């Protein structure tokens, strides 16, 4: 199941992947200030995977690395949640502290501050990692056909 689109398509895909990924990262980073966030940004980044798969038709051996990235994102997310255990789980211990990520946003109409939000932007980044990896994995597996189908019949 290998195909390859014409040179025009492949070149355009190569060029388009860069702005798609940058836009995805923008959405993830600004998730706590504007509509967007980890899931949306990750979905945007994963769409570049779809583009590459369609253009090149080759898959490479990325399954393990994508799977690791997904687990890493999720594990770090839960760990950040557990870091608030001194108070409660999911407690935003960085917010309003003045340190990195700890700025305070003034009330009213304003552009917002990127370093505010406490643990929320960190969690957004973790979710972004997870969603990027998971959606790419889904696309990759679906395009390739499920590869775990070749398992021998092990038990009844």
């Amino acid at each position, binding site marked *: 199941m290998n195909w390859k689109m014409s040179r025009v398509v492949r070149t355009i895909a190569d060029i388009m992947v860069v702005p798609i990924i940058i836009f995805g990262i923008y959405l993830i980073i600004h998730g706590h200030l504007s*509509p967007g966030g980890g899931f949306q940004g990750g979905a945007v980044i994963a769409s570049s995977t779809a583009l590459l798969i369609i253009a090149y038709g080759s898959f490479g051996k990325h399954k393990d690395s994508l799977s690791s990235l997904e687990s890493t994102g999720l594990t770090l997310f839960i760990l950040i949640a557990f870091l608030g255990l001194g108070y409660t789980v999911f407690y935003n211990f960085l917010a309003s502290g003045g340190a990195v990520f700890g700025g305070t946003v003034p009330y009213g109409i304003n552009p917002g501050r990127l370093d505010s939000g406490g643990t929320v932007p960190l969690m957004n980044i973790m979710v972004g990692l997870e969603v990027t990896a998971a959606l790419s994995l889904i696309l990759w597996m*679906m395009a390739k*056909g499920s590869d775990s189908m070749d398992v021998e019949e092990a038990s009844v």
Partner: protein
Amino acid sequence: MISWFLHLPFLVVGILVAIGLYTVLFKNNLIKIIMGIAIIQNGVNLFLISLAYRKDGVAPIWTSAPDEFMVMPTPHALTLTSIVIGLATTALLLSFVMMIKRHYGTIDADKVRRCRE
């Protein structure tokens, strides 16, 4: 007159859910059944979004909030969650259908009933 107009989204919700349910119940193609589920899902999302609407309310974002009132954020969060979960369930359902096709050679719901034997 205005109040009648505000009920229109709920009418659309009813139509969407009815179309989706019809598809799920009476179509045999598994892909069509999943499409029916997606239609119901969109209907339900529209339902929640319409619930949250308040006339002249602004988007519930801290940095763009003047002293007016906002639309209700909880249904928005619920809708977002529902969309995210919907992505996962749709992907899972489609993968199942791919495997069904490989095992049974068909995606006709009437012919996929080996469990009953």
